């Protein structure tokens, strides 16, 4: 029987091409092109935009990681495609592949490159989160913030989640509470996020701020808006029938406009503000004295605070 061309090639000891060089030459232009596209074309449109320092920081982080990841992904795809084409099974080739005994240099390179990439990402992420002059994560840091912004005393805004609306309290302006979220541009803001009932999540998308609103917890998040305009606020934690409708728009305005709004709103809401409990970082409706006094007047019987825990089917 006549030998196949492959067998004939093997028999002739045909020299293997330099696959590594080939793959590298294929990979290099693709990786450079991908990174240029990401850096120049895609980056300005990456979420969540650049309305605040936290949003811009998140956008930059995504951009940086995408630039790092693209060459890796390109290498994987090109290697797979190269293998499929060059090392595909050919008609008449029934021969076993050569035994593989490992290749110390390739393995060392692989592990080193992977480790360097992962360690770089970890260092980059940590520096971005906590480094001086950066914007933090924009996420809730709990009641004791591990990172605080520089640049003066932040404006305090309390975010109160309740089924199914966020309300906002301004303790530095007499403690008025409103359904409108207004903040000044270029002013560090400290959101004190809490809830009066179930778990909600305060997500100011364009500001790059997202913090869980837990009952009995003050979850602190920071941001500094860099541009005026509207941003959307959504609840990001399934919280009941109208969770999907628990949304509103916030507004970033100039400092002058903010002060005017705050002064006007403080006067407009004075009567309601007088009926609110003193400002606190959290509110437990079951122990607010005024509520219990009103409940006592009504003759309602029930558990502590009379707000009907699941095992207490007491009716008013």
């Amino acid at each position, binding site marked *: 029987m006549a030998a196949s061309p492959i067998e004939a090639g093997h028999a002739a000891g045909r020299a293997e091409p330099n696959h590594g060089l080939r793959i590298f030459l294929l990979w290099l232009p693709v990786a450079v092109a991908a990174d240029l596209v990401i850096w120049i074309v895609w980056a300005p449109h990456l979420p969540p935009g650049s309305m605040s320092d936290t949003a811009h920081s998140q956008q930059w982080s995504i951009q940086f990681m995408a630039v790092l990841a693209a060459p890796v992904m390109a290498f994987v795809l090109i290697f797979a495609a190269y293998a499929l084409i060059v090392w595909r099974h050919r008609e008449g080739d029934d021969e076993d592949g050569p035994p593989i005994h490992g290749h110390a240099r390739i393995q060392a390179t692989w592990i080193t490159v992977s480790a360097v990439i992962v360690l770089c990402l970890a260092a980059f992420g940590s520096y971005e989160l906590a480094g001086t002059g950066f914007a933090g994560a924009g996420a809730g840091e709990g009641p004791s913030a591990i990172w605080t912004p520089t640049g003066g005393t932040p404006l305090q805004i309390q975010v109160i989640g309740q*089924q199914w609306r966020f309300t906002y309290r301004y303790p530095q302006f007499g403690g008025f509470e409103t359904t409108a979220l207004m903040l000044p541009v270029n002013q560090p803001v400290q959101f004190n996020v809490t809830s009066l009932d179930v778990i909600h999540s305060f997500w100011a998308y364009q500001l790059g701020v997202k913090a869980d609103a837990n009952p009995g917890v003050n979850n602190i998040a920071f941001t500094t808006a860099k541009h005026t305009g509207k941003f959307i606020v959504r609840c990001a934690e399934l919280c*009941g029938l109208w969770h999907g*409708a628990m949304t509103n728009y916030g507004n970033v305005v100039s400092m002058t406009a903010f002060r005017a709004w705050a002064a006007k709103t403080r006067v407009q809401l004075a009567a309601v503000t007088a009926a609110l409990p003193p400002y606190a970082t959290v509110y437990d409706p079951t122990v607010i004295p005024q509520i219990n006094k009103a409940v006592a*007047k009504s003759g309602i019987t029930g558990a502590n605070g009379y*707000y*009907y825990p699941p095992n207490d089917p007491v009716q*008013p």
Partner: protein
Amino acid sequence: MSLPARIVTLLVAFLAVAAGVAFLCVHYLLASPPTVDYSAGVAANTGATVHVVMQEDPQNTVSSHPDWVSYFIQDPKTGAWVHTTLFSVPAGSKIDMTILGYDGCTPLRNNLWSGVTGTTGGVAFENGKPFTVLNSWSGCNVGHTFSIPAVDLNVPMGSPSLTATLCGTSPCTTNNPHETMTFSFMTPRKPGTYFWQCRIPCGGGFIDGFGGPMQTFGFMTGNMEVVS
């Protein structure tokens, strides 16, 4: 059993199961209380006045949840009380709302909702007396609220005297102790569905008082359909 008989039996069984699933979907998932139409014969976006009448009761004895607090809406054509919380109104019209408050008091979790917002003149009336704040913590005098978040409407509903014997059969009649709450507001010019809710934690037996009737159409939440 022959092959054709087996195939027919299988098909019939399959169709029976499919019909059962479809029935469950239609009956339980898509079922909805009726919508009371307040838009008939009223042109949209003309500022015409529409008078909507509702009542809130301490119970709902016409439902499968007789111990759940509930709103009812009056049919403008027949005057009958309908067990629903869905109503339609014309866009760009003035709503004169009357809500008869038959239920007793429960304090708000957030007393912000003691304030009136979104009404014409920023005011509401309890038995004809104007108010801008009805402090639910000062005297336990608020039974529920009527709130449409999308138009920033919030009106606390006064409750009968603490010593009054509350109505025990729904729908209540004006012979029972009640507070008459009135206010006006403009509907949006843009047609759409605007949900409304009560902000008093009146879902007795449920966590934070916000389950059961608070999350069920026909009781303490519903839709205002704004039509063009």
